[in-house]
């Protein structure tokens, strides 16, 4: 694919390559005026129709990114306000609140120690023996899972 630098940016090319990385290997070359992109399907049995579709998907993702940049820049003041506001509010201040004084009392510490002791005892009494870690529950999903 020849992509004019007067339309597309390197950022869009890079992000699109990452987004489609499970389906294609992307090889990039460039001249002064254009990006030269070669897409290699990861599925070895991909025919002409599938290759044409992959090229189309890559083109769509490029447009997705370029237009997202435009919209993002247009609304940047408002979205920056929202993002900053929500993150700052959620943080709850620069320094975390101190633990409540009531948790430092001997009574509270004894309560917690008793809770833990009783819980451990119940686990030992009622639960099946713990086995060593067996690894990730599921292997990574195959690309053609039908979604």
């Amino acid at each position, binding site marked *: 694919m020849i992509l004019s630098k*007067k*339309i597309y940016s390197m950022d869009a090319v890079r992000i699109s390559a990452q987004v489609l990385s499970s389906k294609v290997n992307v090889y990039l070359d460039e001249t002064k005026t254009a990006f030269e992109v070669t897409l290699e399907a990861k599925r070895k049995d991909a025919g002409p129709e599938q290759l044409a579709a992959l090229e189309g*998907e890559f*083109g*769509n993702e490029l447009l997705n990114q370029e237009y997202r940049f435009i919209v993002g820049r*247009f609304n940047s003041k408002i979205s920056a306000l*929202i993002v900053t506001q929500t993150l700052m509010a959620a943080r709850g201040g620069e320094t975390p609140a101190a633990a409540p004084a009531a948790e430092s009392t001997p009574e509270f510490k004894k309560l917690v120690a008793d809770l833990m002791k009783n819980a451990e005892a119940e686990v030992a009494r009622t639960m099946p023996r713990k086995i060593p870690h067996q690894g990730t529950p599921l292997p990574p999903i195959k690309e053609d899972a039908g979604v």
Partner: protein
Amino acid sequence: MKTKKKTTNNAPRAVAPQLLAAPVPKLSSSEASVSLDIKAHGLEPVLGAAYLMMDKAFVSLSGDRTKTIVVGLRAKDPKAVKPKALAAEFLADLETQKVRWAVAKNNLPIREFIAEQAVLIANGTIPAPSPAAAAPEPAAEQLTDDQRAEIEKLISEVEAEIKTMNDKKIATDPKGVKASWEEKQEQEHKA
């Protein structure tokens, strides 16, 4: 002598569609392509319209985003939609995108201002408006066209009935003996 400064409204206005010559798409058996002058149509509307086609088409762009962009549209399912239909849909979306973007650009400073005001209200820097100042909830939006028509019909029936009652009053009391002072004043005023 000072010359008066001419004020101009620089807010972008959407041009009525008929004033711009409609772009003519080039059609092949598998693809439609439309060449668009960016100065006439605007970059954001062109990309916006192209973007909206992505559910049914593979979209390619070529050219120069400061001068002319050629939008290529290839149907994802060629049996379901033909290139001509893709081009028509794209051009319809383009006209609407021009309006959407014009409204957005006209109002961006206002949206930004209100967003800032919201932060100041929420953080207690400025007071929120009192509840009494809030706009009353108009009921009309809840009414369908049929309901509005029904209400107007009822109102005109009631008005007609009131008129009939008034006419009857005059018939049974021609000298207005039973009429109150206020009613007499109203009748004299009307005359």
